[in-house]
């Protein structure tokens, strides 16, 4: 049985794909891993590279070639065929540190926690900078009971694709199915498995290398503004999902999910109140409508957002700053905040 299935969503990444796949092909662990390369209707030569690897490593590499359906659809497809005890995602423009990955796999053979958390690095390749994202307060190798552990040890961080390795049965039990043709579905991946999560462990291994800076990346600020409707769609889904499952969560699970939603909502408000530069009238209407929706749907989440000065100020001024110029309003609010301090 394979220890780990790694889903690799591929869309027009022929330039980076070799780096990604090469980083996993470590001789000593080839029999323990299953690399599921999912071609999402790429228009470049990605599929040729994928097939080349499949032919060379037939016991390790699986190729799924499908029509374009977005990032979420590739993970859904990989989940359907995955056979590993554990499952994780590696985007095709990112890569693993091979040395730590080999240690990780060998350690995973004797593991049974629902989730294993590791560290990762953000690689700003155009500038050459590298920033490690690590968990300061988690104890290495300790099995944390998700229903009882002190959430403060997470230090305002949460489990994301780049640092999480889930047991496949947890993901299946949670009925995780990501939205298709939509950006930001990683937010679903971060929230939905929690309901079935009983425990987790942290290993001090720095594995994932998150490539940052490509202009076409959805996490690029300008793209956040451009794709804001996608962000809203996923946010709405998650809020409805949270409302629906609120009573099924344990106290800790509910608190954790609420915290993630708080971070995600902050980003959502920032898209309108800080990053926006164009379409001000439309953005103004959209954020007003969104704010109304959130207030109606969950008063608690709505009130939590007042912790953020930007959001509080914009609510007080009925988001008029978004209509005038969110960038300048943001500067004013920041300056006022500093003066007050």
């Amino acid at each position, binding site marked *: 049985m394979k220890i780990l299935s790694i889903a690799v969503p591929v869309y027009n990444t*022929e*330039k*980076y794909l*070799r*780096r990604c796949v*090469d*980083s996993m*092909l*470590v*001789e000593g662990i080839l029999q323990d891993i299953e690399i599921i390369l999912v071609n999402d209707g790429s228009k470049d030569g990605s599929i040729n590279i994928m097939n080349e690897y499949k032919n060379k490593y037939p016991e390790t590499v699986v190729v799924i070639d499908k029509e374009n359906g977005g990032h979420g659809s590739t993970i859904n497809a990989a989940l359907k065929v995955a056979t590993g005890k554990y499952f994780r995602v590696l985007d095709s423009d990112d*890569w693993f*540190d*091979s*040395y730590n990955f080999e240690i990780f796999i060998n350690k995973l053979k004797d593991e049974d926690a629902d989730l294993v958390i590791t560290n990762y*690095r953000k*690689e700003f*390749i*155009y*500038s*050459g900078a*590298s920033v490690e994202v690590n968990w300061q307060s988690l104890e290495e190798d300790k099995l944390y009971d998700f229903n009882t552990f002190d959430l403060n040890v997470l230090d305002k961080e949460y489990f994301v694709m780049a640092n999480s390795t889930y047991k496949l049965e947890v993901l299946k039990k949670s009925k995780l199915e990501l939205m298709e043709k939509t950006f930001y579905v990683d937010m679903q991946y971060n929230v939905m498995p929690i309901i079935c999560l009983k425990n987790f462990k942290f290993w001090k291994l720095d594995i994932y*290398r998150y490539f940052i800076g490509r202009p076409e990346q959805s996490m690029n600020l300008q793209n956040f503004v451009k794709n804001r409707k996608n962000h809203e769609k996923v946010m709405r889904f998650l809020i409805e999902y949270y409302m629906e499952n609120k009573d099924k969560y344990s106290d800790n699970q509910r608190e954790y999910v609420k915290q993630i939603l708080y971070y995600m909502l902050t980003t959502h408000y920032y898209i309108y109140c800080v990053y926006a530069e164009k379409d001000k009238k439309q953005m103004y209407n959209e954020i007003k409508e969104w704010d109304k929706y959130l207030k109606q749907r969950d008063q608690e989440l709505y009130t939590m957002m007042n912790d953020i000065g930007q959001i509080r100020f914009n609510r007080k001024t009925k988001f008029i700053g978004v209509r005038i110029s969110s960038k300048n309003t943001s500067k004013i609010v920041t300056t006022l905040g500093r003066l007050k301090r």
Partner: protein
Amino acid sequence: MKNRILVISWFYPPVNSSEGLVTYKLLKASKYEYDVFCQKGNASWSYGNKEKLPETKNVKSIYAKTKELSEWIEEAVEYFQENKDKYDIVMTRSMPPESHMIGLRLKKIKPEIKWIASFGDPIADNPYVKLSISYPSPHSRANCKSFKGVISPKRIIRNSLFKVRYKKQQRAVLEKDLNLQNEVFKNADYMIFNSEYQKNYMLKDCKDDIKNKAIVLNHSFDKDLYPENVEKNDKIKMSYVGHLDYLRTPHLLLEAISELKDIDDKLADKITFEFYGNMGDSDKVLIIDDELTDIVKVKKPVSYLESLKIMKESDWVFLIDANLTEVNDKNIFFAAKLADYIGSGSNIFGITMLDGISADILRKLNMILTSYSKEEIKNYLWQILYNNYKIEANDEYKKEFDSIEVAKKFDDFVSKIN
């Protein structure tokens, strides 16, 4: 074609310079006959003037008497005036761009002559030069010795005036270079670029009549110049041959080596890194500070033929390009050494911009390509050292850089002139 072709090139063997060597390999493999007006007295901007390369029957070197660039221009014009009936075609090769200044004057002397202008680097708006420009104001805040100086209005005004004057000077230089470049584009009959990237960058503001004059000719390797048999070491040998400076820096590579040494204290028994040629002081300091001297060797520059031998002896050769992302999103510079690396048959480990000519070539060859990430470099070094990483090179594509193939394309182009 009845006559010999006149080539104007400041650099040509025995001067050991990339531009001259590119020209040498092309002409040697061509079916036409050439007179190369060059010089051998001035070895500035090169690795000496004693490079002994095989004689080429179809090429005759005509050496200028002078060592001065400005006088060389006049000597070349004088030579042409005396011999203009001998030539139907002239090819001028930069760098330096003075050869094209000669081309402009030759075209005036004999307007019917066909002029091919070949560009090594852009004359104007060169991304490498753009990134090197700083504003060394003596009145800057950094030069202040006291707080009083920092807030002094006199200093602030002087600093602003300096900046304005400096920028004006820079603009004047850029304008002069642009004028020369545009004059060459306008008057040359044909133009040679070493990659589509370089061509598109240099001709981005030109109309189609200019763009239609351009052809792209790869840099090439000459397989006859490599030694037949070389000895390989037990240890993995990775080499870099050529110039390094604070922009074209091995800094990230050295940091990656240092981190590998942290996880393997026997690293020196398994691998050796050799750098031949100039290296920036800060990188040499890093080698000492990180105690890498047992693994990393910095060696003196070598002759061109010796460099080819080193390339062939090495298991891996490094290509290190400057990170010019700040000024241009694509690398337009095709380093001539890359063609020589390809000819050597050794594996190539490229550290370059993810978009551009080097990246395209390395991807097509199936070689290693990393960008400016210590982590990425380290990961591939680890794969080579401990994971038996193998390259399956695209040998068919290598042929596109064989001087015989490149010269065929050039000869075909020349045969259509007239």
